């Protein structure tokens, strides 16, 4: 998503946007470093999923759900559980998405959101161990966009985090080689949540949270995952082949550091509201 160099790009629209940006304006009237309205709805699949959330950023909507399974650990990390984030770009969400196996852009979306969770060590995977070398919890976070109006990555990252924060699953233990429930309930052990923030470059301007219309004319985008200690734990330049200068990157990082604070506050406030 975001790389529309193979689509028919409206040069007129690009011209129009650039003229607006030169006057310090965006098509929808937002400031350059402002998100669209964000809504988070927690626990939308209460009967079947261990955790879930719907996130709306403007007219972009994604639903994320968590399933917790048990399985054997990888042999190189025998005392660590597994966290995996997947995402699709289903045709329900946009006339631009097609049926069929995931294409490059869907794979990028899934991998960028997964990397945000993985590299920050959002989840303490040691706590997902049931018995070393034998049995661990496997946390699957699956993301389905429902409406696509730009910036799927940030919406997906927020939804993945929100879904993990709401997750509850039964504690298991090994008894004579069999997994049995202890009767207790566990939460996904979140230790360092990273939030992803995407900035698009259009001409010489950097704008946060691009809409689809902005993505159609962008030169490229930069996604940054920022953790709780304000470290960057993942970066991805994509959505076009246009280059970025060091100044651009520095400016974008400044925006990300500020805005991820707001997103974190919003997430925490939403989860308090539902508890």
């Amino acid at each position: 998503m975001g790389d529309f160099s193979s689509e028919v790009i409206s040069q007129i629209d690009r011209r129009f946007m650039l003229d607006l940006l030169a006057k310090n304006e965006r098509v929808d009237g937002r400031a350059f470093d402002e998100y669209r309205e964000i809504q988070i709805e927690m626990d939308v699949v209460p009967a079947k999923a261990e955790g879930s959330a719907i996130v709306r950023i403007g007219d972009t909507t994604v639903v994320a759900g968590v399933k917790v399974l048990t399985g054997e650990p990888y042999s190189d990390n025998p005392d660590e559980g597994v966290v995996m984030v997947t995402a699709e770009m289903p045709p329900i969400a946009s006339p631009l998405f097609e049926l069929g196996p995931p294409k490059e852009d869907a794979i990028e979306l899934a991998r960028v959101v997964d990397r945000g969770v993985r590299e920050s060590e959002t989840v303490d995977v040691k706590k997902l161990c049931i018995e070393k070398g034998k049995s661990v919890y496997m946390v699957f976070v699956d993301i389905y966009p429902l409406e696509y109006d730009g910036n799927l990555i940030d919406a997906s990252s927020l939804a993945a985090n929100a879904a993990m924060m709401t997750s509850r699953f039964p504690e298991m233990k090994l008894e004579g080689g069999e997994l049995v429930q202890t009767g207790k309930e566990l939460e996904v052990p979140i230790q360092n949540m990273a939030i992803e923030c995407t900035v698009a470059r259009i001409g010489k301007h950097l704008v946060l949270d691009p809409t689809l219309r902005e993505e159609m004319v962008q030169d490229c985008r930069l996604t940054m995952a920022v953790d709780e200690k304000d470290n960057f734990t993942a970066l991805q330049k994509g959505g076009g082949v246009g280059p970025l200068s060091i100044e651009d990157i520095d400016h974008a990082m400044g925006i990300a550091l500020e805005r991820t604070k707001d997103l974190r506050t919003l997430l925490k406030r939403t989860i308090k509201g539902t508890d």
Partner: protein
Amino acid sequence: MSPEVKPDFLISPEGLRVDGRRPDEMRPIQLEVGVLKQADGSALIRQGKTYILAAVYGPRELHPRHLTLNDRAYLRCVYRMATFSVPDRKRPAPSRREREISMVISNALQPALFLEEFPRAVIDVFIQVIQADGGTRCAAINAASLALADAGIPMKTLVPAVAVGKADGQLLVDLGDEEDKYGQGDIPMAILPDTGEITLLQQDGSFTREELLEAIQLGINAMKYIHELQKDALKRAYAKRVSELDEDDDEDDDYEDDLETDLGESDLMEE
């Protein structure tokens, strides 16, 4: 990993079902039209704990081209379950079950549509199951026919659907998940309400001839009720749009397309 426990009985000594319903009582149904902005038409259904979204795109150009029908539009239904919609995580790739259900949904809806109006085109119906708790193919048809109407596809009628089943020898309307899993059979069906013609009929389990006929009759009664709910949902959606149009002239552009199908352009010109 949600724990699943087989209930001790599906019909209580008092004659009530596991969730307290009477045998011919449906689960609460919530229908909402026009919930996804990107789609040409869309609808949401909550039927008990079942939660499904349907979106329609088209008529539009058909890819891949070899599916083209020269005398009518191709109605492509795609029924997909979210991995987290079921107790054990579903594998993300489309299953044989999902493919079959996609096909029977398409067959159930087609008789209600004037597909011959759009030769060589495709009308896409995408169905996403967010939470599955029994009766998903029927709930999907209920939502999909609303989404088709919302997209302005010419239709003879909305198509309601319901599953009738059997547990402890008793016929039950609108099966829940446990009744489906542990009961003695399941008959999903859909009708064209004005003629009573049946466009979807499947069955598993075991029924006598008399039971089958009675089950279908119970289903038809339930579907007539669902059809009323569908019409209400559609009217609500249009009433909301018309009132928004009156309130805010700036938003004309957003709604013009939707209204053309309903009111005709002349009504819009008067503003």
